[in-house]
């Protein structure tokens, strides 16, 4: 508690000391902007269950956070640094996270961005096909602000433009896996309970640099893009040292290439979007290796529309069709849950704004008719003033089985509360 008070006092002092910066510094700061926020964010499990782990308790998440954004722009380029200082109340330790730190330069029709950055592609709303950049599902499932779903990536990005067509080429030399909910904090399905795990990330070698490219443009009002990716699956495959009574599990990230396309634009009185992608499992085209995911074709169709003032409806339908399904079924270890050949998922988003858009009440719902599981995210957010907002977000999981993607988290229903002061 004392640590928390000291942390917030320190952060508050910094924020309010800023306008007192001596004159020469402020002159220097002409093109320098310094902003950020102070935030408290807690998430409590509603099921009354406590995982018997070192970090297991009623709280899934709890922290106080201070973000500082430094933005220096000049004739030749721009430097941007977004750093979060925080106190993790569950593990009870202070920490620091550099969320973004990059340099931008421009040369004629091309821009270069080098450093840690957030990358988002595709048309999906919480559903991703060609957006292969790493996600933090633990942050998302515990109701943290949505920007923390994104794991920053150390990358070099080249932007090219010629007339109405543009391209982005990204090289990511350091592999970044998806961050899955921590086993210390979340109840979840474990096919190998109690067995020691090790993670074997792709080695830091030139040949393992992930490459992603997007060519895009807007024609007849439709934003259309083609995507290419060569790298690795971001969710691990589990390899046991032996199938019967294993003693060691290795988490591996098999090679992957993705080829895809998307388009979106005004139609049917709203915005319509479609996206497709082929996940080419490079290390196991035949689908014989049960550790390596099979190749799959993925599609997404979305529609959003404003039905009345300040009320928006969003609908999506998503599917994954597994290739070589017969081989997959034949090679799947017995006793393990098997995936459907055509996994489907639909989402619904409802958003209503009140009081001159200062109060937002929303619901996001995932439902899978094939997995028969769901995930509901009700949310309410109020802007108390231009600088201060508070929100409450629920995360409700469930399903027929505890082995499906959402169904496994059923014991982790939680309510998250966030307060943020921006400056």
């Amino acid at each position, binding site marked *: 508690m004392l640590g928390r008070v000291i942390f917030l006092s320190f952060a508050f002092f910094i924020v309010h000391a800023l306008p007192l910066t001596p004159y020469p510094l402020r002159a220097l700061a002409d093109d320098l902007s310094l902003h950020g926020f102070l935030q408290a964010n807690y998430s409590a499990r509603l099921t009354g269950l406590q995982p018997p782990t070192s970090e297991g308790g009623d709280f899934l998440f709890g922290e106080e956070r201070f973000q500082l954004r430094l933005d220096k722009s000049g004739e030749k380029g721009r430097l941007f640094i977004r750093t979060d200082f925080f106190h993790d109340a569950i593990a009870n330790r202070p920490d620091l996270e550099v969320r973004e730190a990059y340099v931008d330069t421009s040369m004629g029709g091309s821009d270069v961005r080098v450093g840690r950055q957030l990358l988002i592609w595709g048309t999906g709303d919480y559903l991703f096909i060609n957006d292969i950049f790493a996600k933090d599902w633990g942050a998302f499932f515990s109701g943290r602000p949505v920007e923390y779903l994104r794991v920053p990536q150390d990358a070099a990005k080249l932007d090219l433009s010629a007339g109405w067509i543009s391209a982005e080429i990204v090289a990511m030399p350091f592999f970044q896996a998806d961050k899955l909910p921590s086993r210390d904090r979340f109840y979840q399905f474990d096919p190998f309970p109690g067995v020691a795990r090790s993670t074997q990330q792709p080695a830091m070698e030139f040949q393992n640099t992930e490459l992603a490219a997007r060519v895009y443009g807007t024609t007849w009002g439709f934003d259309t893009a083609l995507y290419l990716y060569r790298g690795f699956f971001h969710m691990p495959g589990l390899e046991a040292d032996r199938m019967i009574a294993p003693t060691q599990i290795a988490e591996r990230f098999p090679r992957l290439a993705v080829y895809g396309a998307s388009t979106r634009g005004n139609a049917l009185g*709203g915005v319509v979007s479609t996206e497709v992608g082929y996940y080419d499992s490079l290390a196991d085209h035949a689908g014989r290796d049960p550790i390596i995911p099979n190749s799959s074709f993925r599609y997404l169709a979305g529609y959003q529309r404003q039905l009345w003032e300040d009320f928006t409806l969003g609908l999506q339908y998503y599917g994954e069709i597994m290739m070589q399904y017969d081989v997959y079924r034949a090679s799947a270890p017995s006793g393990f849950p098997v995936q459907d050949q055509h996994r489907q998922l639909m989402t619904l988003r409802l958003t209503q704004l009140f009081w001159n858009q*200062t109060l937002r009440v929303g619901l996001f719902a995932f439902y899978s008719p094939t997995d028969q599981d769901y995930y509901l995210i009700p949310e309410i957010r109020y802007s108390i003033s231009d600088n201060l907002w508070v929100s409450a977000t629920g995360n409700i999981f469930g399903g027929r089985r505890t082995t499906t993607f959402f169904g496994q988290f059923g014991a982790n229903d939680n309510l998250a509360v966030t307060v943020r002061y921006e400056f």
Partner: protein
Amino acid sequence: MMERVLLVVLAVIVVAQEGGQAPLRGASPLEDAASLVRQSQEAFHRAGTDLKARVKMTLLTKEGQQRLRDLMMLRKNEAGGNQRYFLYFHGPADVRGTVLMVYKYPNQEDDRWLFIPALNLVQRVAARDSRSSFVGSDFSYEDISGRDVEADTHTVLRTEALGSRQTVVIESVPTREADYAKKLSWIDQVTFLPLKEEYYDVQGALYKAFTADEIRDVQGLPTITKRTMTNVKTGHKTEVVFESVAYNVGLGDDIFTERTLRRPPEKWLK
């Protein structure tokens, strides 16, 4: 030249109205009203070839609580009555760096993109101009960028002096979706700018009122630099000040692209 012709037309209308005479040869009064509205839209929403202005909106509740929306507006006229808008938000803090880009088309739904800097995300926005408030203010998107002239039936009601200025009062009744059942506009006979507007609901009650509070000459173009929209029913109002307005600054097409959304052009935003 066009303005002068319209002034003459206007003068004739005024005479025709006052004298209770028959409409002009070759043009019904209805068409005259529509062309007057068109001229007003040109002066209000399409002046110059392009525009750069720092826009400061103050949202005021009846209780006196204030919220600010501080943005840079870049606007460019295109062929065929199309327009492009690039709106960069300097404040408030929780939307700083957000950009709204709009491709506005006559008689067709606009294309709208939103860039959210905390996510480095470009979204398409589904929203209907007539029915959506602009960033929580009392102005709708249409109030900000103009409504299709063809979307209403316009009638000249009378001429009227508003302070020292002579105006034509026009009644507009929507033929397409609108958030009003009737609108009255007081259009300045010299500048064609709307000096006052009143919005009535289906019960015939006044619910929203617009006033042009300050008009300045900017590069020879009369410009409303202060305006207020009041929601008469809730008492909420929005005051808008246009600062450092500049016309014909030479905005290129490259500004109004997804690439620029993700990397807003520094030199235009100060």
